[in-house]
């Protein structure tokens, strides 16, 4: 028995997913909307990064299905009691990683703690040594000799599983393509493997293979070892980084989603109506822009903290409280970042409104609202899209910095920023505890790099000015 929990950000994430899917369906039938996307997916770089982004997105979506599990019925209990802890679908999939907490630091694949402790041996003798971990490698009798072969065996199994899976995926894809193009299977397969297809399927499959392997490795290894070690309080680092994905994605997408309507509407209004409307909107964004971003965020988040601290009754669970803070962070980031897009759209609208087709619509007596909606908005959308994909990576990076400053997400929320913030002093330890930092940076880097490469491809395809340049 479970009780579904829909957090604010969950609802918005699903709304966003629905909007994206609806747009995809809409654009499928419209050639002028499809054409630039087709150009995007022709680029190998874009396809590879798209696969990466999809893997992250699926992880984030799985982590957005929240619920509370029922507690075991006590005797004489009539009503089902639910756990105060909110878990997600992803937590279920990650299984043991979540709960197998050690005492403190342990290195990746370690079987013993990172720090010496005084332990009492079976013979009652006290000794200072590195005690065995509670979970990591606990199935091995003699880690020194058995660990290597055990890991090798598990890696080999992961490799063979993933190869098998890929073989099936590849064949299935070839089969589907062959049916779509009405061609025999073999030539299609050959074209695919030689990279001769229009959409670089080979690159896509290659990237998928990497991820399938990573996932297979995680599945095979993470139950028995802490693949990326544990942190100060003994929590599995791999689990933390995977859980951080959702936070990064939420900040990167919801922020723009929240600010987008304002930026688009105000930018268009200012550019189209000019006069005092323009003056007011320009005043608004110059004022907001003039406050240094970090300070405005800091001030707002501080005030939010005071408010939440003084109204504890409003939040039922810790997760809800952390979630509201996350949403608020998106909101305030949105407020500080809409000005750039608004200014851009205002300038573009000023140019568009002088174009002949807007004048022609005027000459037909088309209403101002229809001119804005049918003539201006569709011709601004490519700029909006470019801005959204470019902003995404910047926001993911900003989260880390804000968390460091202390005005980022809630300390209980798992995020790369929090991980880095907690671990930054670990580099000064002797010997160095590097795995937490490295894990966070690597996961963040992969996401941001993919987003940047993808946004490059999107910009090339959508911005005609850049297209002529190549």
């Amino acid at each position, binding site marked *: 028995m479970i009780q579904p929990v829909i957090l604010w950000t969950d609802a918005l994430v699903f709304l966003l997913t629905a909007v994206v899917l609806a747009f995809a369906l809409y654009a499928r039938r419209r050639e002028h909307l499809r054409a630039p996307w087709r150009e995007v997916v022709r680029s190998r770089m874009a396809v590879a990064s798209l696969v990466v982004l999809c893997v992250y997105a699926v992880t984030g979506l799985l982590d957005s299905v929240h619920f509370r599990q029922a507690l075991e019925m006590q005797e004489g209990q009539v009503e089902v009691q639910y756990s105060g802890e909110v878990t997600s679908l992803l937590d279920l999939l990650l299984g043991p990683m979540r709960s197998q907490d050690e005492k403190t630091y342990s290195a990746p694949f370690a079987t013993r703690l990172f720090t010496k402790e005084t332990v009492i041996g079976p013979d009652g003798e006290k000794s200072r040594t590195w005690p065995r971990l509670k979970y990591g490698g606990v199935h091995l009798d003699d880690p020194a000799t058995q660990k290597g072969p055990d890991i090798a065996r598990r890696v080999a199994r992961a490799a063979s599983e993933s190869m098998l899976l890929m073989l099936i995926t590849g064949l299935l894809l070839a089969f589907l393509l062959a049916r779509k193009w009405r061609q025999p299977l073999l030539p299609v397969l050959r074209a695919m493997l030689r990279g001769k297809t229009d959409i670089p399927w080979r690159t896509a499959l290659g990237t998928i293979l990497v991820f399938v392997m990573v996932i297979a490795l995680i599945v095979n290894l993470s139950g028995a070892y802490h693949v990326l070690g544990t942190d100060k309080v003994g929590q599995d680092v791999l689990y933390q980084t995977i859980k951080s994905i959702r936070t990064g994605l939420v900040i990167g997408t919801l922020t723009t989603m929240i600010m987008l309507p304002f930026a688009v509407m105000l930018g268009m209004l200012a550019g189209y109506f000019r006069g005092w409307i323009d003056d007011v909107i320009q005043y608004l964004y110059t004022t907001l822009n003039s406050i240094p971003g970090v300070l405005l965020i800091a001030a707002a988040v501080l005030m939010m903290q005071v408010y939440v601290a003084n109204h504890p009754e409003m939040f039922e669970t810790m997760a809800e409280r952390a979630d509201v803070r996350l949403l608020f962070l998106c909101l305030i980031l949105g407020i500080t970042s809409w000005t750039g897009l608004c200014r851009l759209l205002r300038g573009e609208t000023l140019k568009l409104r002088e*174009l002949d*087709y807007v004048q022609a619509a005027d000459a037909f*007596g088309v209403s101002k609202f229809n001119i804005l909606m049918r003539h201006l908005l569709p011709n601004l959308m490519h700029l909006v899209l470019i801005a959204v994909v470019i902003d995404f990576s910047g926001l993911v990076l900003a989260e880390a910095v804000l968390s460091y400053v202390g005005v980022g997400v809630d300390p209980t929320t798992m995020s790369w920023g929090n991980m880095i913030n907690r671990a930054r002093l670990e580099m000064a330890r002797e010997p160095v505890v590097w795995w937490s930092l490295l894990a966070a940076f690597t996961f963040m880097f992969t996401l941001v790099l993919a987003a940047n490469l993808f946004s490059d491809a999107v910009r090339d395809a959508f911005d005609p000015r850049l297209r002529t340049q190549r």
Partner: protein
Amino acid sequence: MQQALLQVSDLAVRIGQGDGAVRPVDGVSFEIRPGETFALLGESGCGKSMTALSLLRLLPRPAGEIVRGSIRLDGEELLSLPESGMRDIRGGRIAMIFQEPMTSLNPVMTIGYQIAESLIEHKGLVGGAARQRVLELLDAVGIPDAARRYDEYPHQLSGGMKQRVMIAIALAGDPDLLIADEPTTALDVTIQSQVLDLIRKLQQERGMAVMLITHDLGVVSEMADRVAVMYAGQLVEVASRDVFFSAPEHPYSVKLFAAVPDSGKREDRLTVIPGSVPPLNQSFHGCRFADRCHRAWERCISEQPGWYEVNDGQQVRCHLADPAGTIPVERPVEAETGPDTAWSRDTADAEALLEVDGLQVHFPIHRGLFKRVAGYVRAVDGVSFSIPVGQTLALVGESGCGKTTVGKGLLQLLKPTAGSVQFEGQELTRLKGEALRRSRTDFQIIFQDPYSSMNPRMSVGDIIAEGMVAQRIGDSREARRQRVAQLLEQVGLRSEHARHYPHEFSGGQRQRICIARALAVDPKLIVCDEPTSALDVSVQAQILNLLQDLQQQLGLSYLFITHDLSVVSYLADRVAVMYLGRIVEEGSVSDVLDNPQHPYTRALLSAVPQIDQAAKREIIRLEGDLPSPSHPPAGCHFHPRCPIAEPGCSHSYPPVTQLSASHTVRCHLQ
């Protein structure tokens, strides 16, 4: 025969890679002799600019590439020169000027420095010597007050002046060959004649050869010694000017002549070349002109024509010229007939549909601490005219004279400052809100640029239907859909085009769609704002014919705004000539064009390059540029440029002089 200065053989250029690769130049051979003017004539997209750029190896990098051929300058192969050697050629031996003087000069450097740069590079002149030479050059290209101009920036000069500076830069290296790529296309006709004069004068003084690239037969006729016609990446005809203009051989050349509108063709329809230039990303098996040619037969489709010499020096790429070939009997050309005329044109005293009286459109200039209004740009300053039902008034003038503003002002797209616009007796300037919106069904506009006048994100059907939706014409979606299909066919397109998007159409087709869009709301008046000036001659003829047919079928009235006097004579009933926001002369076509009274009208007419050199008129060259409408000259606005101005002209603006019932002029000397 004289040794050729420049010898180009089998030149071919490719832009881009793979499937999308375009071959804008595909096997072009010609030669230019010292001191001659060699004109390369062709429509847009035929590869003439690419040919010019490849002569200097200035193709856009990295996309463009010369794939084969040879270019020899005085026997020296340019294609095998290293880049550093090529730099000595550029500007030193071959100089080039471009179409857009507005963007071709570096906006943040003084013009003096930009000229001196070339001297430093090619003549080793520096310091005072360079400055001295720059001043001489500025003088030579007719820029007054050269010493002051030296330190000015390009934005302080007018378009014509900028082109003169471009020419000065080109001359700085004392080149043997000057390539002029559409040097006057962006300029007004009076400025064009100044610049062409200058090029001709400099050529005679210096004995340099000129390669003139143009689409304008008139310019070719005035300037060229020899002519090469380019079509779809190839030369189709080369001949001396006299031979070419008296006996063009290639069917394309023949058709080009026929498509140029002028008053002599007024009663007939213009000959059109159907279709448009084929895209150059394909490989051709037959003649590239075959599908537009009225004389094409099987051989033209299956076999590429060779290069034949027909007369002395006249060469043609056409199967018709093959001495060994058999030529089928010329089919009688189907006479281009217009549709049945439902509307009689001779309604000399028809009632006025539109009556414009004292129309003013002023734009405020803001200055000072609080952006107070410090003055006005008097774009339109008291314009009066009327258009009778079913007739065409042509509004003629150079850029900046306010003719487009008149169009927008009377359509209430711009709010007039003063004056009245009466449409069927209704005062438009006082209409507001819903009433104005309702009335918009009666008057429509067609714009100049077919590329920016349609929303690229709407299908053609939606574009045409938009006006009907806004005016609530047609009861149902289905009714509107049918009307759109009917309109598309009316303008010579197919009904299934409604599902397509604007970018899939050529310039001429887009202009047809714009016409269909305007017709959708059943207007009585259409303001045509330079509807053909962005189109090639052959396509322009198609659009002009269409406009004329529609007028006859539907009894439309046109306000035809244009700078092109040849179009005026073909299409208009009455002509009004504008100068600096005012109409200086108005009358019937024959009044104004055959018997111009205002000195400006005369200058304008004489500045148009004429194809027929025999009937050459005395050319009146206007000095200087159009003054700014924010500070018009005192008295008659035209007097500073007027060749016959008298002292009295600077005192007061001349009143209207009625020359005849239909002919008025505003000049003190009438």
